[in-house]
């Protein structure tokens, strides 16, 4: 099988690199957490990189992205600087939020990452607003709001679907369905099997894709974004994925079946994509290019972590600033 073409190859390798960057970042975060360098409640999205990278890969710089509480991947996929992000997780003054936000409240406005939220479904209504502002500006800006399947049972989710449909907002609802709302399987919280069912109810075009297939998410998002940019209103993408780790770092996830962990190995979006790239001859048989990409990003993340931990703590004087805007 011949390779797809140099430019296309590069674009595919960029997707791989971005997924590796996020994986390496989060594995480093986990390591720093275990060693006590990062504290607080920490939700990792290891294994869910495909949906964030696939969706953000086709967005413009001026498009808006809002994340969930598991949002490191969303921010990094939209182009956030890993060093400022790591510094924020470490509570340092050089972090994006000057150490005032932390993992669940990330904001990287410079690249269009509007906000994460510590509240399940909390950022979905806000996404209506950025979409509304984009609609009013008339420049074709779209908003993608990420949330998990746990948000699907919350009131703000439903009010937002209705409003987005009613006002034909340029908004992509991107549900990362990893099957667990915190510690509980989706089936224990709703009789609805596919979250797209909700979208259908509100007359929002929807699709369910394999979320660990980065290209499937990319294709679905491309269609949704095209519709939104052309004034066609919102879309809903349910990306089926898997969370191999617990709800938070330290969660032993004993509610999980052992078989799920085995299944995960086949579902890993990075391993899966590398296999695809080998089949497409974008990677050679030994996947040496992928190993180089992985080694490079891991090295970069080492430097990022070192710089973050070397950065100063916030000064006490900063405590009372930024309560109100000037």
């Amino acid at each position, binding site marked *: 099988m011949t390779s797809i073409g140099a430019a296309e190859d590069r674009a595919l390798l960029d997707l791989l690199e971005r997924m590796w960057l996020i994986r390496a970042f989060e594995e480093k975060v986990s390591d720093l957490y275990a060693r006590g360098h990062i504290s607080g409640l920490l939700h990792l999205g290891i294994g869910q990189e495909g949906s964030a990278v696939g969706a953000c890969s086709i967005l413009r710089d001026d498009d808006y992205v809002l994340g969930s509480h598991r949002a490191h991947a969303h921010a990094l996929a939209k182009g956030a600087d890993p060093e400022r992000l790591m510094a924020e997780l470490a509570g340092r003054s050089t972090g994006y939020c000057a150490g005032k936000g932390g993992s669940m409240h990330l904001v990287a406005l410079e690249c269009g990452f509007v906000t994460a939220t510590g509240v399940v479904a909390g950022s*979905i209504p806000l996404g209506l607003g950025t979409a509304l502002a984009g609609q009013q500006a008339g420049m074709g800006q779209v908003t993608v709001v990420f949330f998990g399947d746990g948000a699907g049972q919350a009131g703000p989710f439903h009010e937002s679907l209705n409003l987005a449909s009613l006002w034909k907002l340029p908004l992509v609802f991107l549900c990362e369905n990893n099957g667990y709302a915190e510690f509980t399987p989706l089936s224990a919280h709703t009789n609805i099997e596919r979250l797209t069912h909700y979208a259908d109810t509100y007359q929002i075009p929807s699709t369910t894709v394999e979320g660990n297939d980065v290209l499937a998410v990319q294709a679905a998002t491309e269609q949704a974004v095209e519709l939104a940019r052309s004034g066609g209103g919102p879309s809903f993408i349910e990306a089926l994925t898997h969370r191999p780790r617990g709800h938070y770092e330290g969660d032993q996830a004993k509610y999980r079946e052992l078989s799920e962990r085995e299944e995960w190995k086949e579902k890993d979006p990075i391993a899966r994509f590398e296999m695809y790239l080998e089949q497409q001859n974008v990677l050679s048989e030994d996947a040496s290019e992928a190993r180089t990409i992985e080694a490079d990003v891991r090295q970069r993340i080492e430097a990022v972590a070192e710089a973050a931990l070397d950065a100063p703590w916030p000064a006490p004087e900063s405590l009372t600033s930024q309560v109100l805007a000037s």
Partner: protein
Amino acid sequence: MPKRLYAEALVGALRRALETDDRVHLMGQYFLGLTEHRELMVELREDYVERVYYPPIAEVGYVGAAIGAAMAGLRPIVDIATASFIFQAFPQVVNEAANVHYMSGGQTSVPMVFHFNQGIRGGGAAQHSHSPQAMLWNTPGLEIMAPSTPADVKGLVATAVQSNNPTAWVDHVRLFDTIGEVPDPDYAIPFGVADIKRSGTDVTIVASSFMVVRSLAAAETLAKQGIDVEVVDLRTLTPLDEDAVFTSVAKTGRLVVVDECHRRCGVAAEIAALVAENALGDLTAPIKRVTALDVPIPFSPPLEEFVEPTEAKIVEAVSEIAG
């Protein structure tokens, strides 16, 4: 100077905001509650069809949408109608709007206004009579304005619309029928500047919103009894003009705080605490609070009157310490 109804001044202020700033959008269709004055909004809505939204009754959704729009550069003014309904939107108001400027290290701001009609309006009972300003005051990151006159509502709205903060506009349906002089030219009243609505020497009353009107009426009654009351209208709770309160208390030595919130942890409790902490030496009598009682607001008219801070209760409280 022309005299205007408060309701007219309110609508005029909204119109001016829409006229002068393209980023201003109105969300919600009431603003004037269910009063007859709501007809004043019709023309405004027709003139600015593109910037006036009629959201469904889904407060967490549309208030959240307005907050998100503000984060992306618009300046929405949202009407939550009866203040009790702000609880439906609390997740977005308290946990998103108020926090995000701080949480983002100053990257994001939320330049918007939440309008609601608070307080006892007669027969609203427990689910339509809340005064949530104390709860909001307990939330860092919000500005709070509570005008009491047609002139003040015009000037404070002008400031609120240009503020880069989420601003709660505490309003009251019982103000809509009041009349006052309103200067024609544009003007803005800065936040954090209280206004002495009545100058006096014997007792200071501190109040805001409709309680200023009641306090002024009580002051007239008290004047006939030879008690000269000074009425300090806070106008904004955040920022708070503490100095104006301290200055007046230094002059009179006596303080009555009138407030429609419940007594426990209400606005009056905070004002009383501030004066006790900072100006105890100026006091010649105990501080008195006239507030709603600590029960849900009841429906039956005599029960409602028993619970609310009436003019008679203000007169009584002032008389007790006027000594």
